[in-house]
């Protein structure tokens, strides 16, 4: 079975944290978690064949994951660097256009384009926990909770990497 057949496309990009992650899973909400875990071994992605032994992104055992109280940690696919309770920096400028927005960071002079969903996540970044952000997303959009949590984690991490959140709110989840 090829990776495409399983709904996961090849991608072995590395985030700044160095851990290989399945970024494609972020963008494909129907991918089951076990597939995500299986495909976390980036060295297996080149030939399109599944690895014999599934690897987990968190480095935890299945038992440790099962004991976790945090849904995303239990699932084992929380982005390692995503802030738990992101809060928007007050000096970041926001320009809504229809349902989307441009966000400009005057410190770094970087302009961000957030599509509708990313903007919905950004708007809610007022200190709420990631799980709450995901929950808000599922209330408004037709998306399953796991996908929402995964997407929220990734968006938060991207924005956090860009320095758009207030530092005192940063609470990096150690996994």
């Amino acid at each position: 079975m090829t990776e495409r057949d399983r709904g996961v496309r090849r991608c072995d990009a590395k985030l700044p944290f160095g851990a290989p992650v399945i970024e494609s899973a972020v963008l494909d909400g129907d991918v089951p978690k076990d597939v995500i875990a299986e495909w976390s071994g980036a060295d297996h992605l080149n030939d399109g064949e599944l690895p014999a032994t599934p690897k987990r992104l968190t480095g935890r055992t299945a038992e440790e994951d099962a004991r976790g109280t945090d849904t995303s940690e239990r699932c084992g696919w929380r982005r390692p660097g995503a802030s738990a309770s992101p809060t928007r920096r007050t000096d970041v400028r926001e320009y809504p256009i229809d349902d989307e927005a441009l966000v400009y960071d005057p410190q770094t002079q970087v302009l961000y384009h957030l599509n509708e969903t990313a903007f919905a996540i950004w708007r809610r970044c007022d200190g709420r926990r990631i799980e709450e952000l995901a929950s808000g997303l599922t209330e408004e959009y037709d998306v399953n909770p796991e996908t929402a949590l995964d997407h929220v984690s990734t968006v938060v991490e991207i924005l956090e990497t860009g320095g758009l959140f207030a530092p005192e709110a940063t609470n990096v989840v150690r996994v």
Partner: protein
Amino acid sequence: MSSGSETTAPNDPGRFVRCRIGEFSVALRSDLKQVVDDFAAIYPRERSDTAAEGQAIQIEVRRSGRSRIGRPLYRVYADGEEVGGWQRGNGVFPLVEWGINLRIIARRSEYLQFHAASMAFQGNGAIFAGDSGRGKSTLAALLMTRGWQYLCDEFALVDCSTLKLHAFPKALCIKAGSYAIVRRLGLPFARRRDYIKQSKGRVGYVNPRDVGPDAVAEPTAIRYVMFPTYAGGTTPRLGPISRAEAAIGLFRCCFNRHAIGDDTLPIIQRLVSGASCFRLEVGEPHATGTLLEATLNTSPRGVEAHAARPGTMTTGPHARREHTPSLTTRREMLRVGAKLAYVAPSVLTLSAHQVFAAASDPSGICSTAKHTGQLCETDTDCCSRQCAIGICK
């Protein structure tokens, strides 16, 4: 700034010409008579001896040494600042043109200026924004022959307060690769001479007023923002993009955002809010014109419907938007407990150094993955550099 060997003969009738191109006065002095002659020939109707000297953009061409084989070389100065130098005769005129452009960028901060062709169709302004090589000038030439009015092939000058598009009706600069198209369109080149532009190679010039007395538009409201590309195909394609995408694309193409400062983004925000925004793949000239006119003749609502017709984009990032409900509908849906269709989040970044970067996409981002948040189909370098969501190799 000038070397000892440089000489200029101020206001020597054979080496001095003054023109008024739209609202912009230009005074050209040149040690190279050919440049003055060409300038006067390309802008015969624009010659003006009454233009205020103090307000005119001062362009000087100074002789500056010789090449190793003994040919004279020239430097070009705009308002005293060197634009470029050590050019042989046929490379000077494009530098003069660019010197004028640079001074407009530097002087005219009442306009937000974009790297774009600007045209008007039935009184509605259209911006065709993008880097060099997108076919802006050729597209402008094509549209002029179809009755569109010309504003500029290099600038979109947007009045910061009224948001109207103003004309800088300079001669269209046509690359050698488009000579045949322009000749087929029946447009006359102003001089039967090739000039060498450093970035484009051989170029020729077409004065818009040679097309007709009404070829140049008055200040006009902006109704359309487009990002043309030329892929070499024959079938043109036109697809709506979101206004936010258009905004980031315009920001990237903005010449003078440092002069405008913090007001740049609010102005762009207002500008796109009143416009329909598209990505255009230019195809066969007349098919492109027909597609544009058919689409723009429809209402904004009709534009989306038109996207389902042959020749327009029906798949990819834009297909989903056709079904995006209006804000009122969305609120109503949420009120009654219905859920909105979900689109994966997408975050694109544009850093300062990417502005004017020669990227292949109007918004300066990877052109393959991005807007929909879909995975990139190709492992292009473009993606890895610029796709903020970090999914591309």
